[in-house]
Every structure is written in structure tokens, then in C-alpha cells.
């Protein structure tokens, strides 16, 4: 193994390079990225960067004194994979040859075609998106956010903090029912109201009015929400189309075994673009969280270089910071039959709950309960470590 190509120069690509070096790989690592920026951290884009307490320098992921010796090819989308030779074709027609390919092309924001073409309409995934949105979040502007998921909620929170009037529209009857279940998704949604943000749930946006610029969002029930800025926060789709000509299996993400290995020898996928076989169910499961993008590269590096791994994956963990509140979740809620309030006060929006299946704790949700949460998260890891 002399030459490894990583496609996608974001957190997962960078951590893969780090993990390869940490495992002793001294050969050439080429990092291909379609963005012109060096790897940066995305979570602050909806939080500190959006409100202006962080600048670009604060979200850079590389350390100055880190000598990874990477061969960057930035501003160059990969457009195809030549599977038999483990080579990657770039948009300028050049070919990056290697002995192995790690795909870490992440995901992109889904859009609402009906809102296309109007000024003031944004999605948020990249640094460039964040720069454009930040410039548009003037205190005199009215913001409508479509989608009350974590990122939508964080954007609403940041904009409210900047002094904007904010409405949030959510098609589902309760926000966050997918990740947290409808009861606690609904409880968390109270954070919006508490901050003076109006939440309209169980109703779809019907039309987007504008005169070149967005002026209002009309909901299916006839409600008209005036808007100068619209953010579409309706989830993310994996960046996998560039692989469509290759034999790699693609469903909701690039499908791999439990270690990120695709069906093609020498080709791996990791991070937001990948659907690893879930260790519990064996089914492909795409995870879109930061800790996943940071931890799994070690598994890939070990598997790629040594054909085995000593890493025991930890239960999924993610956080969301909104309205000055720390929301943390670890584990899973799948098939839970009970939710137990372990600590705090649900009505005061400071609490810790566990999700249980047949009595066993499978998930932990903490809202402004960082200390208790960390303990529970560790306990969860201990239970789930296979014997």
C-alpha cells in the first residue's frame, strides 16, 4: 500500500488521513475536495459562526503543528470512480491513481424547488452558505425557517439572538419525532416559544411569494408569514451521484459492511455519505453526526491497512445547542417501550430521560444536564460493548 486517495476534504476525510498516519501509513495521501476551503468544522456554522462570535480561523480543523503531509486537490469535484484500478477521475479530466479509495463526500442540504430563484432563500451546509446567510440576517429582517429539525432550530435560535422576528414551519405534527420520539420532540419544541419564535407545526408551506426577493410564505392552511429571508432546513441527501457509474452499492448512502468496506476491494466509505451495516440489525444505516465522522475513520484506517480493527464503536452521540440550551443524545430510541424521567424538571426544560426497551436503557436524552448526561452516556457504552 503506497498511495491512498480520500475523496471529500471535510472532517471525515481529514480524520481518515489522521487515522492512517496514526496507524503508521507513510505513503502518499491525496485529499480531493470540491470546496476550495481547507477542512473546517460544520456545527458552528448554524451557531457561533452565524451569530459572528466565530470567524473562519476559529473553525479550521487542521493544527498548525500537525505534519500530516497531505497532497490536497481542492476545488476539484471527483466525477467518477474507476473501480478496478482504484482511481478517481476529477472534473478537470485528470485521474488520481492509488491503491485504495476512501469516500467521504458527506451530504448536501435538500432544497424546495418551489422556492428556487428568489433572492433571500438559503440552505445551510457549507462555509459559503453560512457566509451568505450571515450577511442576510439583518435585525430588521423577518426570517422564516422551513423545517424544525436540529439545524433549522439552531438557525432560528441564532437569528432570534441577532434580533430577527422568526417563524418556523414544520410539516410533521411534532418536530424531532424521528430522533427523539413525539413526546420529547414536542417538549423540546417549547424552546422556540420560550424564545419568542413562532412554531407552526403539522402544516406545509404552500407557496412562496416574492418580487425577485422572497416576501412571504403562505401555508397550506392559508396563514401568510411575511419574510425577507427564508431558510430551507429539510434535511440532507448523501453526495453519491458521482459514483453512479461504478459498481458500488448505493441506497440511502453508500452501503458497506460494519467497517466501511464497500463491495469493491480497496474502496471504503465513511461519514455522512455512508450507510454502514448496523451492528445490531445488520441493515444499512446512514448516520449524520459529528462524532460518527470523527470516530469511524479509525475503523476504516485499521481495516484498510491491517484488515482488522480493534476499535469498538461507541453508541451514536450527538448534541445540539439552541436558545442557550445544551441538548445531548446518545444511543437509539428504536422500538423503545418506555421513557423514564431520571432527573430534573421537564417543564423547566432541564432534564435527563432514558429510553428503554424491555427495561434495558437504549438511549439517553439530556437537556441542560451535561454532567448527568456524560455519566449515563458512559454507562450506555459499557452495556453495549460486546462481550
Amino acid at each position, binding site marked *: 500500500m503506497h498511495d491512498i486517495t480520500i475523496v471529500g476534504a471535510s472532517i471525515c476525510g481529514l480524520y481518515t488521513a489522521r487515522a492512517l498516519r496514526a496507524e503508521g501509513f507513510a505513503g502518499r495521501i491525496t485529499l480531493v475536495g470540491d470546496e476550495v476551503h481547507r477542512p473546517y468544522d460544520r456545527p458552528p456554522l448554524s451557531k457561533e459562526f452565524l451569530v459572528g462570535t466565530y*470567524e473562519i480561523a476559529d473553525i479550521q480543523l487542521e493544527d498548525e503543528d500537525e505534519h500530516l503531509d497531505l497532497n490536497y486537490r481542492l476545488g476539484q469535484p471527483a466525477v467518477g470512480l474507476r473501480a478496478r484500478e482504484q482511481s478517481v477521475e476529477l472534473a478537470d479530466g485528470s485521474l488520481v491513481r492509488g491503491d485504495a479509495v476512501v469516500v467521504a463526500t458527506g451530504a448536501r442540504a435538500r432544497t424546495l424547488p418551489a422556492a428556487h430563484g428568489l433572492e433571500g432563500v438559503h440552505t445551510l451546509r457549507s462555509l459559503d452558505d453560512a457566509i451568505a446567510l450571515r450577511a442576510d440576517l439583518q435585525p430588521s429582517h423577518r426570517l422564516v425557517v422551513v423545517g424544525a429539525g436540529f439545524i433549522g432550530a439552531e438557525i432560528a435560535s441564532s437569528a432570534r439572538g441577532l434580533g430577527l422576528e422568526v417563524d418556523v414551519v414544520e410539516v410533521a405534527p411534532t418536530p424531532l419525532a424521528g430522533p427523539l420520539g413525539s413526546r420529547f420532540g414536542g417538549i423540546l419544541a417549547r424552546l422556540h416559544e420560550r424564545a419568542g419564535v413562532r412554531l407552526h407545526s403539522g402544516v406545509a408551506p404552500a407557496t412562496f411569494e416574492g418580487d425577485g426577493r422572497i416576501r412571504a410564505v403562505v401555508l397550506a392552511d392559508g396563514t401568510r408569514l411575511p419574510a425577507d429571508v427564508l431558510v430551507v432546513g429539510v434535511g440532507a441527501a448523501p453526495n453519491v451521484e458521482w459514483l453512479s457509474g461504478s459498481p458500488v452499492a448505493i441506497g440511502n448512502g453508500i452501503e458497506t459492511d460494519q467497517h466501511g468496506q464497500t463491495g469493491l476491494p480497496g474502496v471504503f466509505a465513511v461519514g455522512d455519505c455512508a450507510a454502514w451495516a448496523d451492528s445490531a440489525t445488520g441493515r444499512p444505516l446512514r448516520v449524520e453526526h459529528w462524532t460518527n465522522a470523527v470516530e469511524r475513520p479509525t475503523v476504516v484506517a485499521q481495516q484498510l491497512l491491517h484488515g482488522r480493527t480493534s476499535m469498538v464503536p461507541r453508541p451514536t452521540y450527538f448534541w445540539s445547542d439552541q436558545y442557550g440550551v445544551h441538548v445531548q443524545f446518545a444511543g437509539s430510541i428504536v422500538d423503545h417501550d418506555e421513557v423514564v424521567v431520571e432527573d430534573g424538571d421537564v417543564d423547566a426544560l432541564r432534564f435527563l430521560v432514558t429510553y428503554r426497551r424491555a427495561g434495558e436503557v437504549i438511549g439517553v436524552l439530556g437537556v441542560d444536564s451535561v454532567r448527568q448526561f*456524560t455519566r449515563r452516556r*458512559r454507562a450506555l457504552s459499557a452495556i453495549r460493548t460486546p462481550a
Partner: protein
Amino acid sequence: MLNVCPLSELPPGEALRVPCSPPIAVFRTEEGEVLAIDDTCTHQDASLADGWLEGCQVECPLHASRFDLRTGAVDAPPAKRPVRTHRVEVVDGMIQVELSLDTPNLPPGLAAGSGANA
């Protein structure tokens, strides 16, 4: 010297946040050593006293960077800068901390004087 609390009130494996400015975190390791660092993570506004203590390292409760309690050094991003360490003495069963005179490495957006609210 800052009087923190009697040693008997800080069991091994536990941490205490002292709400001074900036706040500091005092840890008693399982081995019995008492160590103090700035409480606020250098990455973002998280309280390291809420983190997970393992040996003489603490893992940040939010994004899992680990800080060495003796040197303040951080093992891996996202935190990049070390935390300040403070000298600790136990005098007559009382934990006392001598605050460092170095400039604290507070996270961007947090000026000295404001504290972690986690």
C-alpha cells in the same frame, strides 16, 4: 490562595466547579491526587468539571477532547489549546488553589470574566 473546600467533601473520582472568574475545576483522581485547571473548555463554552475523569485526564462533556490535568495539554481536536493549570495544596484537610497568573485560553467569544453556563 483560594480556599476551595475540605478534602473530605471531594470524594475520589469527583470534580468541583469553583465559580470564580474565570471558573476553575478541581478534580480528585481515583488515585487520590487533587488537581485544578480552568473549568471552561478551550473549544467552546463547556464545563470540564462536568466531564468524564479517567486517570489524570478529563474528557470534555461536549465534544470529547481530553485534557491532561497535570499539564493542561489537549490530546486531540476539536479543542486545540491547552487549559491553564493551577497549583493545588491540601493544608490541614482544606483544598487550596493558587491561581495561575498566565492568560487563560478561553474559547472564542468568551471574554475573561464570563463563565461556562453548562
